[in-house]
């Protein structure tokens, strides 16, 4: 499938279910890690132009904490876990017990950073392994990279392999949040961006006709 516009609502529903299963497992992992209740929203699947993508996350200038990894194997793609800076700080503070941990200004605490990277590893790993189980595909994550920077800069790095093939990306966006005592707080977003050739592989593995 070369043209993302060929996707019909049935295909989008399947991709939504992939986001559901993946992020569901990741939310459970995070919940176990923090011993707190984590909620997730219904995944949002959409085809967006490369220009629009950063705008959907608050504009290219917005500062975020990002864990990025490439998926290798049968259905290559890129995966991001994006979180607000303040939320990531709180997460690491509660995990390491170091209340001074901050991500505003370097130098950053090395133990905290490595904890953050490990959280990314666990979340992305549980997302991907459930996806691999569901589709019966061989999917391997690369070691995740961590960056605290502008969301535009982070995303265009992950869009490189996609952008050689087209001007649009299919984004499976799942939003997870922590259920607090008073209000819900965003924990982060999962973005799964399959490479253009990977759709066919994913649909085929689930026994769906691509040209349906």
């Amino acid at each position: 499938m070369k043209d993302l516009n060929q996707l019909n609502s049935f295909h989008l529903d399947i991709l939504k279910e992939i986001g559901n299963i993946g992020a569901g497992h990741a939310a459970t992992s995070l919940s176990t890690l923090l011993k707190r209740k984590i909620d997730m929203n219904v995944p949002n699947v959409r085809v967006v132009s490369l220009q629009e993508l950063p705008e959907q996350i608050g504009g290219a200038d917005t500062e975020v904490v990002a864990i990025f990894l490439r998926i290798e194997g049968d259905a290559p793609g890129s995966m991001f876990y994006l979180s607000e800076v303040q939320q990531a700080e709180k997460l690491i503070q509660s995990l390491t017990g170091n209340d001074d941990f901050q991500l505003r200004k370097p130098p950053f605490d090395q133990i905290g950073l490595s904890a953050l990277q490990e959280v990314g590893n666990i979340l992305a790993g549980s997302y991907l392994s459930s996806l691999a189980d569901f589709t019966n595909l061989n999917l391997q994550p690369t070691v995740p990279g961590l960056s605290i920077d502008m969301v535009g800069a982070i995303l265009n790095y992950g869009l490189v392999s996609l952008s050689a093939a087209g001007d649009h990306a299919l984004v499976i966006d799942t939003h997870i949040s922590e259920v607090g005592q008073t209000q819900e707080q965003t924990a982060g977003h999962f973005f799964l961006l399959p490479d253009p050739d990977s759709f066919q592989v994913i649909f085929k593995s689930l026994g769906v006709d691509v040209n349906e």
Partner: protein
Amino acid sequence: MSEVIKVGMADLKVATPPDTIRTSGLGSCVGVVIYDELTNVSGMAHVMLPDSSQSKQATLNIAKYADSAIKELIKQLLGQGGRAFSLKAKIAGGAQMFTFQSGSDVMRIGPRNVEAVKLALKQSKIPILAEDVGGKSGRTIEFDPLTKMLHIRTVNQGTAVI
């Protein structure tokens, strides 16, 4: 009233004073500014990939690739009163946002973009008067065609002017 003309990812635009021209969130992408020193007509491209011959697309987005974007930018500048002999360039971007152990080509995209931009400018005989490339930080850049200064903002290293 002066306006800020925004250039998106894989996009290019031309501006004249008093307007300024900016692009946000350059990561591995390179922001290329070409301007005419005398007539002040200026353009900016947000380049994502090095080489348009690598494109797998049916219709080529010329602003996406270093070689085709620079060619198009020069053409548009000349069309709006720029003169080939007084064109100058300033470039910024090409960062390595994440460090990975595997040194695959895709992951080295920042430095490759910078190389391709420099080559394309050299071929068009446009001198690069200033550059801020490489590193690990994203950049937001804004060019003022009147002062010919390029303002560069990063998250952790503050603002620079080149």
